[in-house]
């Protein structure tokens, strides 16, 4: 009588493999995944998810039938979201001629209400191609991965000082020789600025920084 929770909630398949829920065994999706060079492991205890992929993501497949049949798929989606796995949770939604009228509502529910990632597919064949890409793409470099660029700040400071009206490159360089940061420059008394850029510019710079521009917070 024991009703054990699925034990393999966080099982990560080995490289090049997908763990598929047992119910998919005879599906065309699995057939074409195999054709695409993906190895399949079947598992009875995956919980709500249909597939586990090697890069720590999992997939719930919402078919055309699920969508047309009513709101039952929503409960499944909620359970899927609430599963506390450490995986990135993807939802594949069959967007076909029959289900397209519901797509907008499905998207709202999946993305806006549940905060999950939705990827539309035309059917099981397209889904298998997408899954194969996720599996094989794991070892490729992601072109969108953010490179943390350590920028040289000096040119940015120089450019910023040149936003002060009346200050061009020459004056900006002269000012930064004397006051090396924007804060120092901002807080410099007009008399000290005067020695570098002359009286008129000194006044202009000082008032630019200190002139009230709004009523404030």
């Amino acid at each position, binding site marked *: 009588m024991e009703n054990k929770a699925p034990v393999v909630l966080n099982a990560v398949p080995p490289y090049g493999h997908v763990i598929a829920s047992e119910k998919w065994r005879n599906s065309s999706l699995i057939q074409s995944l195999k054709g695409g060079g993906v190895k399949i492991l079947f598992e009875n205890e995956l919980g709500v998810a249909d597939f586990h992929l090697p890069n720590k993501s999992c997939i719930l497949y919402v078919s055309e039938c699920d969508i047309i049949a009513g709101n039952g798929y929503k409960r499944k989606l909620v359970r899927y979201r609430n599963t506390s796995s450490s995986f990135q949770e993807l939802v594949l939604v069959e967007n076909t001629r029959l289900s397209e009228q519901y797509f907008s509502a499905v998207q709202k529910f999946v993305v806006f209400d549940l905060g999950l990632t939705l990827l539309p597919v*035309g059917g099981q064949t397209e889904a298998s191609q997408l899954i194969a890409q996720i599996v094989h793409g794991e070892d490729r470099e992601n072109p969108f991965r953010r490179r943390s660029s350590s920028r040289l700040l000096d040119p940015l400071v120089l450019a910023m000082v040149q936003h002060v009206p009346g200050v061009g490159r020459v004056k900006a360089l002269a000012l930064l020789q004397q006051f090396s940061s924007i804060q120092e420059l901002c807080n410099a008394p007009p008399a000290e600025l005067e020695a570098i850029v002359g009286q008129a510019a000194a006044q202009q710079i000082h008032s630019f920084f200190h002139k*009230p521009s709004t009523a404030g917070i």
Partner: protein
Amino acid sequence: QDSSVREPPAPSGPVCILADSRCISSGVELMTSLRQRHAATVHICSLDGSYFIVSNRMAVDRHSQSDLAATQNRKRLAERVNSLQGLFERVCLIVEKDRTKPGEASRPFQRTRYYDSTLTALVRTGVRLLWSDGADVSAGLLADLARLEQRKGQGIAVPLEVKGQHRQQALQLYLGLPSVSYVHALSMSHNFRSIAQLINSSIEAIQKGGCMSRSRAEEIYRFLRYSCDSFLLNTSKAGKPS
């Protein structure tokens, strides 16, 4: 994690959206729909790319399916996504079905491996994808996103326009700060009494006045106090204009 600092504004009234001026030419229909059907307040400004800002932390970019499927676009797309991720905590991409000319039979989109790999890579980077049939649906999605962000206390709460020459100049200066987007600069130009007040503010005050994350405020704080090396400045003489 920083929501405790900010008081969420009452989620009422029309949603506010900033749009790049280039969005007009590419999306008259979308703009009209945003304003008329979704009663959104849309302000056109000059962003560094044709995208939308729907909250203090979210940018939305719009691409056609064939755009994402074209191999020659990848470098540009990657640069765009990278720069948006530097400026915003959340980046959404609306993928729109290609438009067919009137009278032309709609060709079904041919899904390629390349297209799938692009989608996969975007999802892995944390970009949120939304799917649209056309301009009208996209307008609805933009309004929904803005409303959702408003409910979470992240809506744009300052006036979208900046009036007066000095304030305009201050806005331009703020835009020169590293990792500062138009919406941060806008908030700062409304919330700080003077430029000097921002420059001498604590990290907490910058975070609050700029309606931004703690790490972004720290970056600005450090930048304002960053001591330039005059040698580096002089050698960068031939450097690029700002």
